[in-house]
Each structure stands twice: as structure tokens, then as C-alpha cells.
């Protein structure tokens, strides 16, 4: 599903590379935690996956496509197969829960009937169907992140990317979100989660990839968080 071949990323005006010769392979249907100190390059690696950034050298292959060589006009079509989740949710606070999830379908010209079928199903999955008509700003942080998860999965993506999805949440809500991501993985999607949530990583016993200073320092099946803070 994902392959990094000797990937280096140097931001303009930066002296040290954010990623330095990364080689990785993540198979279809895997669940992977990406861990490491702040500034280690986790977010950069995620951004390469949904092509917010382009590698300075090396190849990033997602779902069989070398996305570094994707024409800019094709990027939207890449993203339609991905679900991306952020620490700050990136919702439209003035709009309803339903609208936020439907948004992902509307902007890609999915027919109305299809939207009316798929949005409630996605909200059902994250347990927010009863809040469909609430505005997002009226929801708690945990609920907002569940809306974001619903938005990410409403299109049945092959790959879900979550960049510190529990960074703003209390332990209980963090668990709920991780459980959801795990469920999505069970349904067939490949899931990559960058996180600092040590307890969760330790208990879920999934594959753990650790990055420090732009280099992969550890890659373990059924791994642990491995840092003290």
C-alpha cells in the first residue's frame, strides 16, 4: 500500500533534512503507529503521503502510484481515496455535523441521494447519528474528532492517515478514537497513526515505526512506544 524508497525531504531554507533516506514498506490492511519526539519528521512523512509536500528525492508510492510524479491536477483524485485526520480536527465549526461529513462528498460531486445514504452510515459508525443536526462548535473535543473520523471514512478510503488524532483529547476520548481507527482497519483500510499516546501504543500491540531526526530508528511488529515522556 505504501512504499518509501530512499526518501529525503529538505524544506526550502532548512539546513538539515526533515527526512533523510527513509525506506519503508507498509502492506495493505496494516495498522501502523508512527512515533518519535516532536520535530522528528512524523508530520512531514504524513504530508508526503497525501501530497501536501513532495519529496526532495526518492520515491513515495501510495496504492501503486508514484505520487511525487503525480500531475498537480491529479492530486485531488489521489486524496479522494485517502482519509486524513488531524489533531485540530479541521472541521467547519459553524456548520452542522451532517454538513461537515457531507462536505467531503459534495465537493467531489457525489449525487445527493448517495450523500443521504452514506453520511448517516458514517455517523452511525462513530456513534454521532443523534447529533447530526448539531453545529460542530457545540460538540466536545472528542465528539468533534469523531466527526472528523466520520468525514475521513465516508468515502471508504483505502488508506486512513491520522496525524496526532488524540493530541487534544483526554484519555477516555483518545481510546474511543483509537478504537474507531482500529475498527476501520478491521474493515479493510490501511491505517497510519502518528501519535504521542504512549499507553495506547503500548496496549494496542500494533506495528510501531519510530523516527528520530528524520531517520527510521526502530520498526517492530507488535511494538511499544518506547519513549519515557
Amino acid at each position, binding site marked *: 500500500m505504501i512504499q518509501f524508497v530512499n526518501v529525503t525531504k529538505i524544506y526550502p531554507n532548512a539546513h538539515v533534512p526533515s527526512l533523510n533516506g527513509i525506506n519503508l514498506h507498509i502492506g495493505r490492511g496494516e495498522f501502523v503507529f508512527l512515533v518519535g519526539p516532536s520535530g522528528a519528521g512524523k508530520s512531514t512523512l504524513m504530508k508526503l503521503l*497525501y*501530497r*501536501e509536500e513532495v519529496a526532495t528525492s526518492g520515491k513515495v508510492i501510495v496504492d501503486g502510484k508514484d505520487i511525487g510524479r503525480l500531475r*498537480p*491536477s491529479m*492530486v*485531488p*483524485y*489521489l*486524496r*479522494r481515496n*485517502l482519509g*486524513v485526520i488531524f489533531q485540530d480536527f*479541521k*472541521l*467547519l465549526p459553524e456548520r452542522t455535523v451532517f454538513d461537515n461529513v457531507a*462536505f*467531503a462528498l*459534495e*465537493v*467531489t*460531486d457525489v449525487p*445527493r441521494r448517495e450523500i443521504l445514504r452514506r453520511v448517516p452510515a458514517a455517523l452511525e459508525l462513530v456513534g454521532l447519528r443523534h447529533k447530526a443536526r448539531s453545529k460542530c462548535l457545540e460538540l466536545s473535543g472528542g465528539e468533534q474528532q469523531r466527526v472528523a473520523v466520520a*468525514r475521513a471514512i465516508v468515502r471508504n478510503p483505502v488508506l486512513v492517515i491520522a496525524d496526532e488524532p488524540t493530541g487534544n483529547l483526554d484519555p477516555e476520548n483518545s481510546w474511543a478514537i483509537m478504537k474507531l481507527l482500529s475498527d476501520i482497519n478491521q474493515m479493510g483500510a490501511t491505517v497510519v497513526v502518528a501519535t504521542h499516546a504512549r499507553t495506547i501504543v503500548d496496549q494496542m500491540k500494533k506495528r510501531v515505526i519510530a523516527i528520530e531526526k528524520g531517520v527510521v530508528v526502530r520498526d517492530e511488529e507488535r511494538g511499544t512506544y518506547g519513549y519515557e515522556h
Partner: protein
Amino acid sequence: MNIRAWVSAIRDSLQSMTRSPIMSLASMATVAVSLLVLAVISLLAVNLEYMAATAEDQVEVRVYFCVNDETTEACQDGEPTQAQKRALLDAAKQVPGVESVTFVSKEVAWQQMKQQHPEYEDIYRGFEEDGMNPLHDSLVIEAADPDQVKSIAEQMAQMKGVSEVNYGQDFVDNLLAFTKAVRLGGIALVVMLVIATVLTLSNTIRLSVYARRREIAIMKLVGATNWYIRRPFVVEGVLLGAFGALFSMALTSWGYTQVVKYVYVNVPFLPIISPQDILWDLTGGLTLLGVLLGAVGSAVSMRRFLKV
């Protein structure tokens, strides 16, 4: 084409306009002013050309005989005698393309001038008290066909005893030169105004884009195409341009109708194009231009925001 997406784009753009009404009005006003100037210049140029074309159809050539104190080569023998004038009149009749020739004495010409321009009565009286008539005897030649006027005038100018030949073309040439100047000056002015308009429009759109930057970022993340994201802003620019254009055309139509009414009453012989012959075309053209300006303005402001 997805009708629902267009409807939502129009709704979004109307929302944007009401969110920053002052900026929206300012951009509509700049569009209106630019197009107003363009409309005035177009009307002026078109009418001047129309006048030139009308004048070109005049078939009259006026030949003035020499008087005694002229020093040019053709007049070195002084004023022709009556017999010589008679001979010139006969010669004029022989020039190909001449339909008729009439002799106008300077006394008759003086009376005609007094009738046509009574406002200079003081000047006339001054000359009359001194017993002077500054005019020349002349021939009025009618050509059979406007195309022959120039060659008739040239042949008459060669004849001895002829001081000056006047015909429509002089006036036409002057008028066309003036029209050209109006056009050039107008184009320069309009180009500057168009640049100012595009900048104002793009600034307005930029505000709308800024107000919705969060939404745009999310749209991009969930895979909206650039065209989808751009659509409401382009619609906003187009609407601003179209509203501005319609406003300027309303003003132009009213103004031009007033001018034409005034001309019909006060200067009835002045050729002028009637409003219904020109205003529809002008409105169509300028609205199209307004729409184009709006689209360009929004394209300019969107470029920066859409880099992936």
C-alpha cells in the same frame, strides 16, 4: 455540468458579497467607472466616424477666384476679369464628373454668410462701414459622384486665377485625424482603468478567499478539484463585473439619450447615431467585458491560494 454545484457556487458568492458590502460596492463602482469611460469614448469615436462618413458623401467643391493682393504663383496676375471668370466656369463644366457649376459672386456670398451666421453682426457692420468685402467670387461645383470630388478639386486647383479649392475631404481628413486621437487617448485611458479595475476586483475576491481559507484548505484535503474550489469566487467576480457593467450602461444609455435629444433640437443638421441603433450592441459588449474583467480579477487572486 452539475447544476447543484453551480447553485451552491452562486449562493456562496452572494454570501461573500454581503459579507463585505463596502468592498463589493467599491469593485462594482470601479468596473462601472472604467466601463463608463470606455462607453463615452466609444460613442464619441463612433459618432465622429459617422460624421466623417456623412461628410464624405457631400459632392460639393468650392473654387475661390484670386483677388488682387494675393502673392501666390497662381494669383500673380491679380483678380481675373469677368471674361476670365466666365472662361474658368466653362472650363469647369468640361472637367469629367462635373454635374453642374454655379457662379457665386462675393456679394451674394456675403449675404449668405450674414443669413447663416447672424451672431457676428458686429463684425459684418465693421466691414460694411469700411466698404470692404473680404470674400472672394467663387464657383460651386456639384460632382455627379462623391468618388470624383477629389479629382475635380485637384484639376480645378491647377487652373490659373484659382486661389483656393475647398471640398469635403479636408474636413473629413481633419475629422478622421481627430477621431484617431480620441481613440488612442481613449485606449490608453481605458487600459489604465482596466488594470485598476482588475486589481480592485482581485482584492475584493482575495478578501472572500481569506474569509473562507479554512474551508478551502479542507476542500483541498478531501479532494476537491481546483476548479470546484475556484468556482464560487469566479462567480463572485463575474457577478461584480456584470453588475458594474449594467450600472455603467444604465448611466450611459440615459446620458446618450439626453445628448441625442439635445442635438436633434438644437443642432438638427449634425449627423448623430440614434440611441436604439447603438446602445444595445454597446450594452452587450460592455457587459461581456465586465464579466471578463471579473473572471480575470478572481483568477489573479486565486492563483496563490491554489498551489497544492
